[in-house]
């Protein structure tokens, strides 16, 4: 599946520039239907919550959430105009931007809590592992969900922050759902997981050795909502409305963590018994540009892209 995603990304980069955006249509009630492509994970809880709270309706928007299996499917859908907005992590967006894909961020999505040991993502090892801190990960094998993306660059940042040599770490690509089993079997020495697998893994007795998003930058913004430049230019009003509703949703989510946990039951299949143990991401009011520059610098340093793209041009 990973190879397919990679092929998909490559294909999209080659082929997708000329397709124009479809115009969002108004239905009988005067509401504009807007399609948003998201991944059914904890990070996108605010948009589901905001929809339920009627924040999008207030703006005259009728939200249609299209669930996709990964950012690799979302970027082409947004650029070709099949959906107006999409959700992606910022390293993917920076890579896309450096390949001259016409993308524009319209709202933040999720960020690190900034609390060491209490973030929604981190690196786990087995209870009896010789790895005590991020520094010891040098020379070990670490599973990440996508190679050459946000998770391996931030784990390297963690190792560097702890004074270790990040060049020797071996990354293996594994889907999040397969990681804990691989860790148990000893196929890998450590896994970089996010919720709900972090809580599941900790419950099973594994040990957290690094909060890689916290180590990377203060208040790291991890993911956000974006649109294509065509849509942004053709329908500036739509973007303004979506951003307004999204910001209200993020604020509401930040203020009502219990509502966030409850909304998870509607679009994920996370076990209700696990809900209280989940560490929720931070739902920031705005994209932290400094942290974005850090991500861009890491992407260049790790060879994901050749030169850092204009981060200001990506942001609204």
């Amino acid at each position: 599946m990973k190879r397919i995603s990679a092929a998909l990304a490559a294909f999209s980069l080659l082929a997708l520039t000329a397709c124009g955006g479809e115009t969002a249509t108004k239905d009988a009630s005067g509401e504009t239907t807007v399609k948003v492509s998201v991944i059914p994970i904890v990070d996108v809880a605010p948009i589901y919550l905001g929809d339920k709270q009627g924040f999008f309706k207030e703006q005259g928007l009728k939200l249609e959430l299209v669930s996709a299996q990964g950012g690799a499917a979302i970027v082409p859908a947004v650029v070709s105009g099949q959906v107006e907005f999409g959700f992606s992590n910022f390293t993917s967006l920076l890579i896309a931007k450096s390949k001259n894909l016409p993308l524009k961020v319209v709202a933040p999505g999720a960020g690190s809590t900034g609390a060491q040991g209490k973030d929604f993502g981190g690196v786990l090892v087995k209870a009896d592992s010789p790895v005590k801190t991020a520094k010891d990960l040098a020379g070990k094998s670490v599973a990440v969900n996508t190679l050459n993306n946000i998770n391996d660059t931030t784990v390297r940042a963690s190792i560097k922050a702890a004074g270790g040599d990040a060049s020797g770490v071996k990354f293996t690509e594994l889907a999040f759902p397969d990681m804990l089993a691989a860790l148990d079997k000893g196929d890998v020495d450590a896994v970089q997981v996010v919720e709900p697998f972090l809580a599941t893994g900790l419950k099973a007795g594994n040990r957290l050795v690094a909060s890689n998003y916290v180590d990377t930058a203060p208040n790291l913004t991890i993911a956000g909502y974006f649109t294509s430049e065509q849509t942004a230019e053709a329908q500036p009003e739509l973007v303004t409305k979506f951003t307004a509703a999204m910001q209200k949703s993020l604020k509401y989510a930040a203020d009502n963590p219990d509502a966030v946990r409850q909304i998870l039951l509607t679009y994920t299949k996370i076990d209700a018994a696990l809900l209280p143990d989940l560490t929720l991401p931070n739902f920031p009011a705005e994209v932290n540009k400094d942290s974005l520059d850090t991500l861009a610098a890491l992407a260049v340093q790790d060879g994901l892209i050749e030169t850092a793209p204009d981060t200001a041009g990506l942001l609204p």
Partner: protein
Amino acid sequence: MTADAPGRGGRRHRPLPAWALGALGLAGLVATVEAAPRIGLVDERYLPPFSAMAAALAEQTGQREFWVSLTETLRGWALGLVLATLAGVALGLLVGALPPLRAALTSTIEFLRPIPSVALIPLAVLLFGTDMRSTLLLVVYASFWQVLVQVLYGVRDVDPVARETARSFRFRQFTRIRTVLWPTALPYAMTGFRLGAAVALILEITGELVIGSPGLGAQIAVAQTSGAVAAMYALVIVVGLIGVAVNAAARAAERRVLRWHPSVRGEAVA
């Protein structure tokens, strides 16, 4: 699946009927899946016992989402299979009946046929985004070749005497297709249909799983990303059951359409 027990035991032991043996095999599988995690052969967290899967399945069936997804999957599968069958039979007869066309297209068909449908996912997403049409494209592409190639073989299998006879009687092209080509090609087309039915289901689920178009496959993916292992296996069981049903239905259709054919007449009536 089916057991052709010849009744080796002689007069005293009546062999178990095929359905009973089938049920026995299934019961064995259920018992293994129930026992393996319980006795610690596999970790319960990664392969829960069958009872846990059944409980998760019962919970799923109480949700509207499950039935909507099931309908989406069946609809995508059926639509894809019908389109592929119609196109495969029509093109197969046309190409098969016209030797120059056949000669011109054989290499192209042999080139296109082995391309795995999943390799077309980027193209499908580009054309149709993540909605059901993307998956439909994969389904049609994969099952189309199954039908087409079978029909091509079928047309080639026409008895030369029958063909010459039709020619001697100066049958019109359409009559020739109807009375000579079609009856010969039909058993092949039905085989293609049956193979296509299974392939279509596989691609329907794969498309939903990878692209995220609505259906049971997408639900499986959501269960995976939610760490809901039992719920995921519950859905996998449903897909397996659909597979069994699809195969049974295709076989029944085959028997019905080909009841005059020696291959079916020779088969014991189940």
